[in-house]
């Protein structure tokens, strides 16, 4: 298979091929109703989160400016009632989306980045590097990640950064194993051998061939993992390890307040339900997108 001189450059070809694959993938994705619904939901929620400062007033998060009474039930003034200091639960839920989504995205990016690097290195270098890296991966895979994350968030200063770090550092192993498996399959393909034979170094092989080939999988994994990260954030916040700044609430810290403020005993369902439902919807949306993407990559999972 020699390349005639008048053909486009290999790089352009590769990009054209990728573009075509992406279009085909999107077409396939668009066929999945659940995936589209998930994507739509996400678009709306992200948009609301971004627009929160425009459509609402942040001052409403300041307890000293709260106008409502303690745990007021829903009314026209407060569509979802108020919390213990008298702030609007709707406003809190909206602003919480910003923190929960940010933590979810960034923590997942961190964990997927670590996982991808370790996975590719482990598969590419083989032997001792692989054995060592996989030993560490296995170790972190079996460690009860929540216990580790709790410990980390306690040792470090409390705040968003710490939560991101705690989630990122404890959730990468599954991504690493996935990427390693994929890399092994790819490196077994003839074109990698060819690239090596043509003098491609480690860096060349990894960056030009392996990485682009594992990226779709990494992307799917990221989509699925954001949901887990959001749940993990809410759990850590619920256990009291989240950002303590009242002006930066998250869904998890709202639920913690509801729990500590005896919303159950007081029958304040409007304080208890919205943050939990918000988490559920967002996680579900990510999962639906992820599964749709997954079936784009793996035709055997396709419906019908």
């Amino acid at each position, binding site marked *: 298979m020699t390349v005639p001189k008048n053909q486009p450059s290999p790089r352009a070809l590769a990009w054209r091929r990728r573009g075509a694959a992406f279009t085909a993938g999107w077409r396939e994705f668009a066929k999945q109703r659940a995936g589209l619904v998930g994507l739509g939901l996400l678009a709306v929620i992200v948009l609301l989160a971004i627009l929160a400062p425009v459509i609402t007033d942040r001052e409403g998060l300041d307890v000293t400016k709260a106008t409502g009474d*303690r745990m007021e039930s829903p009314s026209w003034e407060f569509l979802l009632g108020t919390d213990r200091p008298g702030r609007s639960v709707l406003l809190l839920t909206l602003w919480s989306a910003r923190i929960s989504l940010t933590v979810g995205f960034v923590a997942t990016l961190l964990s997927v980045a670590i996982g991808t690097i370790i996975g590719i290195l482990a598969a590419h270098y083989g032997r001792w590097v692989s054995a060592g890296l996989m030993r560490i991966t296995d170790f972190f895979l079996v460690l009860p990640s929540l216990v580790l994350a709790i410990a980390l968030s306690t040792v470090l200063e409390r705040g968003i950064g710490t939560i991101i770090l705690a989630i990122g550092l404890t959730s990468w192993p599954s991504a690493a194993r996935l990427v390693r498996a994929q890399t092994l399959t790819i490196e077994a393909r003839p074109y990698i051998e060819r690239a090596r034979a043509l003098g491609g170094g480690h860096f060349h092989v990894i960056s030009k061939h392996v990485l682009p080939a594992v990226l779709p999988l990494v992307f799917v994994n990221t989509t699925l993992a954001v949901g887990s990260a959001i749940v993990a954030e809410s759990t850590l916040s619920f256990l009291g390890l989240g950002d303590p700044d*009242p002006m930066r609430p998250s869904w998890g810290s709202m639920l913690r307040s509801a729990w500590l403020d005896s919303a159950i*005993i007081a029958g304040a369902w409007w304080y208890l339900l919205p943050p939990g439902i918000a988490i559920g919807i967002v996680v579900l949306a990510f999962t639906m997108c992820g599964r749709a993407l997954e079936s784009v990559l793996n035709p055997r999972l396709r419906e019908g």
Partner: protein
Amino acid sequence: MIIVRSRLLALGVTLMASALVTAPVAVSASASPAPARAAEATSGQDGKVLRIGVSREVDTLNPFMSITLMGTSILRSQFEFLTTYSQGSMTPEGALAEKWETSEDKLTWTYHIRKDVKWSDGKPVTAKDAAWTFQKMLDDETARTANGSYITQWESVTATDDWTLKIKTKVPQATMDALDIPIVPEHVWSKMSDISAAPEFPMVGNGPYYITEFKEAQFTKMKANKNYWRGAPKVDEIHFVYYSNSDAAVSALQSGEVDLINPLTPTQYDALQGEPDIQLNNAQNRRFNELLINPGAATNDGTPIGNGNPALKDVKLRQAIAQAIDTKTLVDKVWSGYATEAAGYIPPMFKDFAWEPTGDQVRKFDLDAANKALDEAGYKKGQDGVRLDKQGKPLNLRLLTHAERDIDENASPFIKGWLKEIGIEVTIEPKSDNQVNEETTRGEYDLAISGWSANPDPDYVLSLQTCANRPNADGTGATPDSFLCNEEYDELYAKQLSEFDRSKRIDIVKQMQALLYDEATLVIFGYDNALEAFRKDKFEGFPQQPTGSGVIMFQQSYWGLLGATPKGEGPVPVYDGSQGTESGEDTTDAAAEESSNTGLILGIVGGVLVVVLVVGLLVARGRRKTADDRE
């Protein structure tokens, strides 16, 4: 083989599911859940049980080792002290010691031990038991773990005969008539090889109750001591049931699983209001809550320690911060009104010593005035509205709070909000209790939320603010509070200690509080009430300390539990200090016994639900079977 496996699996599924599903049926059927159980327990022949829902954990029940509030409170009913605090005025009154006297030089104390006191195993309690207990503490470092501070200045302890105990101290000691040291039976404890070991149950005691069983994180059980010298209690058993979540304790009270709970948050208290069978108790408390403002921490020899923001050394800044705290709103919003608005350092419960600012000294909540004061003091606002300190750095203060404490969690957002209004940025830093303690002890804070429980005698809380109470050179030891070191305050402190005229002493103590108010190294932001609740369909009531307005649980004595009066057993006793006797106060309201139907109904509903579940499951299984076989 495969078939066998799948059959086994199916069997497993059914078994597990049915075990889970039918267990509640059996329980609801045999003893429809909670209220019915409770009725059984109180009306049954074999004993009246008082079940107390608590959310504080017991550390250990070894009287030499226990230091947590829960552990020491339980042990207060297990072991008698030489003296206790009276129900009415919370002043020392005789317990194991009938009377006591001190020598001219106040160095020798003689206690006359009551002759009619017996251990729960029937053996007499003598001065030798007390002497053995104290001698053990003098000899054995481990035995000093919990209560060692009382005996550091002791020289010797002797039982001159069975009923006389003599204690010699090296220096005069003010706490000699209020020694909170449990006295243990020599014939039991002298045989123990390890004084710090977990005790065996039942534990021989001489208090109104003795411990029979302890299941960590679950419950502690006590039985009434029939030999108790004040007379046996009216209930036969007390169960302290541990709930790690206080909401769970509240639901347990509602459904009758427990009879008494403390503490309640204001929200829980309000939620219980209007429940026909529940009596609420909104009791004045001996606690004050304060915001510490680090004035530049230093050790007791004056060496600066910690990393407090140096700007806070300026008393004008501290006063402005104090003025920006709206204590009225805190009472309303944080405590929903179940608190007293802040005034002086000594809680208003101690009427004599309590003080409040008057006239010009009053610092009314006024953000504009605080802003103006800061402008005048030269704290200019930066571009983002945050003021700059004298070095031109923006004023960013850390606020150290106890994680998971209701007050801290709810008050800190308010403090942050108000300080922002006067141009001070606050970062809230919730930490575990021990981290908060360590960091405040080392002066590593700018602002911190703290609080103390005051005693009838204000000496201890006043001593917290003296120069000498700051930590020693290596930054440990002592429990400093606000790191105040003020010569005038120290002089007044020494003066009140040696002042034997009570009204003069009160004057001095008030002067000290005025001084604290002006120094503003601490801002009192309120005295929260103790909120408790009990089932009035099971219990007539409990003696409160102080009588009529005080708490039932966590008293400075055992009156509340000793005098627990089950429904229909006459008036709640009042212990008026006429040793061993009690007088009645008829509070019986002639409410007709309500038969508790709710429990039965709930049980039936639960049972029906479960049956529906089981049937549904069976039907589902049946349908699957047919579906499988049809193909």
